[in-house]
C-alpha cells in the first residue's frame, strides 16, 4: 500500500518537502543537544521537565481521537463512523509516535534507553507508560493497516483483527490514565497530586483529538475527492462538545478543592499560573487565553446552529485545540515545578533550539500522518470512482 503514498501532485510533493525541511532543522538541532547536553534547553535544576514532556502529555490526548470513533462504530454499531475509522486510527499512529519521540529527545542519555527493558521495573510508572504507548502504536498500526488493505481489495478484514479492535478501546483509556499517573502519584508536587488528573486527561483528550479530526476531515474534503461526510463531522462535534464541557467542569472541581481548602502547597501553583506568585507569572496571559478559548468554544458549540455550520464549527475546533494545547502543552508540566519543593521560584521558558527540536518532532508526525492519509484517501477515492 505504501506505493500509493509516492504518487501525488506537485502540491503534495511541495508539502512533503516543507515537512522534510522542518524535520531536517529539528534533527540538526537535536544533534547539537545530543552532543552538548540538555543545557541548551530552558530546563533547570528546579524545572527539570518542560516543553518536551508537555508535548508528550498533550499528544497522548490527540491519539484518543481513535477511540472516540472506534467505540461508537464497533460497540454501538454506529455505521456512519465506518467511513472515518481509518482516519481516526491513522491519526493515532503519528500522535503516539511523536509521544515516544518526545520521551527520546528528553532523555539525558538516549543511548541507554533500552535499560528500561533490560532492567524492567514494574514499580515505575514510566515503565508502564512505555508499554501502553508502544502497545497502542502497534495496535493501531496493525488494525488500521489490515482493515484498509482489506477495504482496498473489497474483502472483509481477517477475523483475528476483531479482538485487537476490542482491546484497543480500553487500551486507549490506559494511555491517558498511565500518563496521568506519571504525575499524579508524586508526594511532593501539590499541583499534580490529585485523583482528578486522569479524568482531566481523558476529557481534554476526547476534546482535542476529535477536534483535530474534524479539522482534518474538513481539509480532506477540500483537497481530495473523498468526503468524510457531514453526519460524521456532526457526530464528532457532539463528542467534542460534551468532552470540552467535562474538561472545564473537571478543572473547576480542582479549582474548588484547591481554593476552598486553602492548602498552600496546592494553591501556589494555581496562583503562579493565573495571578502570579511572588512577582513571577510568565504564563498568566497564556493560561487566561486557554480558559477564554475553551469557554468561547463551549458557548459556540452548545448553540445548535453554530455547531451545525461547518465554518463556525471549525473555528470552535481550532479554539479547543489551541486552548487544550496551552493547558497541557505549556501550563501543566512546568507549573508542577513552580514553586519548587523548597518554595523557591525558578521560571521556565523554552529556548529557540528546544522549540526547533519540538517542531522537528511535530514534522515527523506530520510526515507520517500525510503518508498514512494519502494511502487511505487514495483507496477511498478509488472506491468512490469505481
Amino acid at each position, binding site marked *: 500500500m505504501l506505493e500509493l503514498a509516492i504518487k501525488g501532485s506537485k502540491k503534495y510533493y511541495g508539502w512533503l518537502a516543507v515537512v522534510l525541511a522542518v524535520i531536517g532543522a529539528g534533527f540538526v538541532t537535536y544533534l547539537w543537544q545530543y552532543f552538548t547536553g540538555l543545557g541548551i534547553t530552558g530546563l*533547570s535544576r528546579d524545572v527539570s521537565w518542560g516543553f518536551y514532556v508537555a508535548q508528550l502529555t498533550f499528544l497522548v490526548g490527540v491519539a484518543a481521537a481513535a477511540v472516540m470513533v472506534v467505540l461508537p462504530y464497533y460497540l454501538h454499531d454506529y455505521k456512519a463512523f465506518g467511513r472515518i475509522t481509518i482516519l481516526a486510527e491513522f491519526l493515532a499512529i503519528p500522535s503516539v509516535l511523536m509521544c515516544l519521540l518526545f520521551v527520546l529527545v528528553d532523555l539525558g542519555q538516549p543511548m*541507554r534507553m533500552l535499560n528500561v527493558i533490560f532492567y524492567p521495573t514494574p514499580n*515505575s*510508572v*514510566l515503565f508502564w507508560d512505555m508499554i501502553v504507548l508502544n502497545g497502542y502504536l502497534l495496535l493501531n498500526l496493525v488494525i488500521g493497516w489490515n482493515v484498509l488493505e482489506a477495504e482496498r481489495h473489497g474483502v472483509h478484514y481477517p477475523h483475528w483483527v476483531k479482538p485487537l479492535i476490542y482491546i484497543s478501546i480500553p487500551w486507549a483509556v490506559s494511555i491517558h490514565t498511565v500518563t496521568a499517573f506519571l504525575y499524579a502519584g*508524586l508526594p511532593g508536587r501539590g499541583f499534580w497530586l490529585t485523583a482528578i488528573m486522569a479524568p482531566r486527561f481523558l476529557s481534554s483528550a476526547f476534546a482535542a483529538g476529535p477536534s483535530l479530526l474534524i479539522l482534518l476531515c474538513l481539509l480532506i474534503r477540500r483537497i481530495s475527492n473523498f468526503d468524510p461526510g457531514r453526519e460524521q463531522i456532526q457526530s464528532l462535534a457532539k463528542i467534542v462538545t460534551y468532552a470540552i464541557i467535562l474538561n472545564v467542569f473537571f478543572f473547576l472541581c480542582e479549582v474548588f478543592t484547591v481554593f476552598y481548602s486553602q492548602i498552600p502547597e496546592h494553591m501556589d501553583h494555581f496562583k503562579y499560573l493565573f495571578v502570579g506568585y511572588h512577582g513571577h507569572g510568565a504564563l498568566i496571559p497564556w493560561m487566561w487565553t486557554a480558559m477564554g478559548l475553551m469557554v468561547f468554544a463551549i458557548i459556540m458549540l452548545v448553540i445548535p446552529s453554530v455547531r451545525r455550520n461547518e465554518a463556525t464549527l471549525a473555528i470552535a475546533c481550532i479554539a479547543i485545540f489551541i486552548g487544550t494545547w496551552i493547558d497541557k502543552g505549556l501550563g501543566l508540566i512546568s507549573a508542577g515545578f513552580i514553586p519548587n519543593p*523548597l518554595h523557591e521560584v525558578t521560571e521556565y521558558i523554552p529556548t529557540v533550539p528546544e522549540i526547533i527540536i519540538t517542531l522537528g518532532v511535530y514534522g515527523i508526525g506530520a510526515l507520517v500522518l500525510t503518508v498514512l492519509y494519502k494511502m487511505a484517501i487514495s483507496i477511498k477515492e478509488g472506491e468512490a470512482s469505481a
Partner: protein
Amino acid sequence: MKKGRRNFLKIAGISALGLGAKPVLDVFASSEEDAVVEAPAEPRIMRGPNAMTAPQWAMVIDTRKIESHSDVEPMIEACHKIHNVPEMPDKKHEIKWIWETEFKHAFPNLAGEYMSKRVEHLGLPVLCNHCENPPCVRVCPTKATFRNSQGIVMMDYHRCIGCRFCMAACPYGSRSFNFFDPKPHIEEENKKFPTRMRGVVEKCNFCAERLAVGRKPACVEASNGIMAFGDLHDPRSEVREIIDSNYTIRRKQNLGTRPAVYYII
C-alpha cells in the same frame, strides 16, 4: 563422504579432549586459589576489613550549634571537593549534594510569620534524606537509583538514562542533573572518586565510599560536632542517643517518606 567422516572424527576428538581437560584445569585453578585471583562468574562485592555497616544509617544535625555561615561552609566544601561536584556557571544547571538554606525553605510547612529570630535567620544544611521509603527509587524506570542494604539511596551513574523522573519525585529538591559535561567545571579532580558525564542525575551518597573504609561522611567530619552520624537501629549509637533525648524533626514528615536526616532546631 570419507573426508567428511574423517573431519567429523577429528573435531569430535578435539572436543572430547577439551571436555576432558576442563576439570583438570579447574582443579589446577582451585589449588592455586590463594595466589591467583580468578575472575568469578558473578562479581562479588567484598567488604573491607574496616568497613562500617548498619541496617539504616542516619544523621542528626544540631542547628543550635550553628552560629554563622562559616559553620556550614566547611561541610559543603568537604563534600563537594571529594565528590568532584562541579561549579556550574549558570545557577539553573547547578549541581549540589549539600547546601545551605533558610528554615522557611527547608521546612516550608513549619515556617510562620512570627518565629524565633535565631531560627528565622538560621542557615541550615540540607542534603538527600536517604528516606526509608524513597519516592525517587519508586519511580526510577531502570533501578539506576536504589536503596542499598544499609539504607543509603544510591545512584548508578552508568545505568541512569537521564529521564529525571526521580527529580520530579523527590520532595526535597535533593537531586541535580548534569545539563552539560561537568568535567571542565571541576576545580581540582579527586581521582579516587568518579566524575560524572552529561545527561545523568546525581546526589549525596551519604559517603558510602568512605563508610566502606571505616570513615564517617566528609560533612560530618568537617562539621565540628554539628552533625552526628550512626546506626538508627542501634539504641546505643550516637544518633539514637541524641534522638532519644532531644526533640527532633524531619523534613516533610507528613509525606510518609521517612527521612533519615533529623534536625534539632
